[in-house]
């Protein structure tokens, strides 16, 4: 299994191409919100950028909070699968995420990174990467992965 990590965010220029790609290709929308990865500045654009995306928790608190099985733990590597037809839009998953990685759109549909990697080719600075899920590295530290 692969896990999507924002491993080189210090290179990010804030173009939002990743979010727009995820919305376009995965969530079928034109948006920088309705996406599994979203870019924020860490306090104004002069302070650098941060990627908000699923850290591939195992066990995943969002899956635990889901009452219907719409969000379920992936078989290995952490992270979740999303079955939209099972979702009742209760909104329990989003607050369960410790890093605010689940976006609920105006209808209450959740958007979360599915670790598919479709956004990665759209990053002009190679900030994003699919890494082996069983690689021995901390999930939440960005540059650590590149220096392993």
């Amino acid at each position: 299994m692969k896990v999507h990590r924002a491993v080189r965010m210090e290179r990010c220029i804030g173009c939002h191409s990743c979010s727009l790609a995820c919305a376009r290709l995965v969530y079928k929308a034109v948006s920088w919100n309705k996406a599994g990865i979203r870019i924020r500045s860490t306090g104004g654009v002069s302070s650098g950028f941060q990627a908000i995306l699923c850290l591939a928790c195992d066990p995943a608190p969002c899956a635990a909070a889901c009452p219907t099985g719409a969000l379920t733990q992936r078989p290995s590597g952490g992270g979740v699968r999303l079955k939209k037809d099972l979702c009742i839009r209760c909104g329990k998953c989003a607050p369960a995420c410790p890093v605010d990685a689940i976006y609920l759109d105006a209808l209450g549909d959740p958007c979360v990174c599915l670790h598919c990697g479709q956004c990665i080719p759209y990053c002009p600075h190679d900030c994003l990467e699919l890494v082996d899920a069983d690689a021995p590295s901390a999930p939440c530290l960005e540059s650590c992965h590149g220096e392993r």
Partner: protein
Amino acid sequence: MASDNDLFRVLVYDLAAAKGDIVMLPGRGEMIGGSGLAALLFAKYGEVAADALDPGQPIIFAIGPATGYFPLMSKTVAGFKSPYNGFYAESHAGGRSALALRFAGLDALVVIGRAKRPSVLVVGSRRLELLDTHYLWGADVFTTGKLLRKIAAGSSGHRSIMRIGPAGENGIGYACVNVDTYRHFGRLGLGAVMGAKNLKAVVVQGDADLPLPVDKGYAKLFKAIHEQVTSSGMMAKYHDLGTPANVLPLNELKSLPWRNMTATSDPEAAKISGEAFADELLMHNAACSGCPVGCIHIGMVREKFSDAHRFAIHQVAYDHEPNFAAGPMLGVTDPAEVLAINDMADRQGLDIISAGVALAWAVEATTKGLFSEKDTEVRLAFGDAEAFKRALWLLGHKANDFYALLGQGSMAAAKHYGGEEFACVLGQEMAGYATGETYFVSQTVGFRHSHLDTGAYSYDQKHKEKDVAAVVKFLIDDERERVLLTSLVGCLFARGVYKPDVIAEVLTSLGYPELAAGQDAAAEKARRARWRLKLATGYDPVLTRIPRRFAEITTWKGPVDAAYMEALRQAYAEAVLALVKEE
């Protein structure tokens, strides 16, 4: 056009009433968006005869049909009546402004009236409020941005903060609007129009999601364009050294204005080259939202403010134009000082191109004894960065009668003190190209008086022949192509990518096949609409003048030919008038 497709969704907000209206306005098929839409809206809401700072005058922020849907479609066009020259004007900016408007669900935001107290307008897809922010009046641009991130919280990362500094509050003719720290609606005084409306800032929250275009080929077309702009090398010049890469070639071609354009080349150029900035000061790049190129270059100024090794860090965006105005034009050749001057202008909310060139005039006028240090409060001399920083503060704060006049432009000051012949003004203070007759005429007569109105500065670097008819044809044709791009609204750096066939594909995939087929006619219509407004507000291109200084210089082509330049100016002016008369 199908009727729904033809409608623009416009928020018209009245600051006096603190209420907004959503207006659905037809015209997409004829005016496209951006430049065309701004002209359409000024014709509807503007008052051609009223003063630029009249509360009734609108400020228009317009995006276009491709904004947010394709790479580099990342700019916003502002339409307003300029307090600098009294004419209908446009200024363009990027940052997050364009995508924020798109995801706020708007094609345009129109702001009319004057707020009762200094205020901030907050706009989102489900939010509209006017906040009393009297406590921000007088705050510099960066303090304002920092506080507004808390005051108008929400949509972090997906929000644009467009604000003014003291210069805008004080009605300086070239007060700018700072957009998201590193970009600006720079020229022609939009900042003063906001100030006159008691409007310290506009915060736009891009918090809605839009449906995917129905066209099945949309994602594929996006991918093809994205790959072209990121992998072909076509955009390398914009993200590598950026526009300051121009410095050495321009200096080599005797086309870089130095010390109020008393020279067009100087052996010191290497000190302030694009290479020097990149090697010594460049920290990182940034991008406008929706643009993977990332042309914004941010340099670091490490200011030692105490002998005990205490430092303040300033992050300053740089480009050729600001560098020119704060560097060679003022005789400053230390890159860190160039950025420090830029930083001071930014804090005041002054357009640095206009302010730097105006100060260059003031230095020469000082040496000629046209006014005294009592007027300037600081001794102005080429190369003295500290003096220029102080002068920019005084200018932004309209500290006395001298700075009040200089704040209306160097020509306004020259009319009072003398020295019109060496005011480097081409419709407004010149941009950093002393390339010759074509450029001088283009900026003088052109709609925005901008180096981006046409590719004249580039034309000068390739053409030596003096062919009035050929040059006028080039200027007229090139302007229309650029208006098409600024109506979509694309960055003008993308003009190599968005050729007519690509634009046709883009518009077709977005559901505008008729507009795709009639793109040239629509661009022509938009171009003429904005010229018509400029003329209606009193502009007569035939009456423009090029100061003597521009005929006194030598470029790679040799001495500027004043008679040819005048013939070209008249012919271009007549061609512009003919555009409007043809209708």
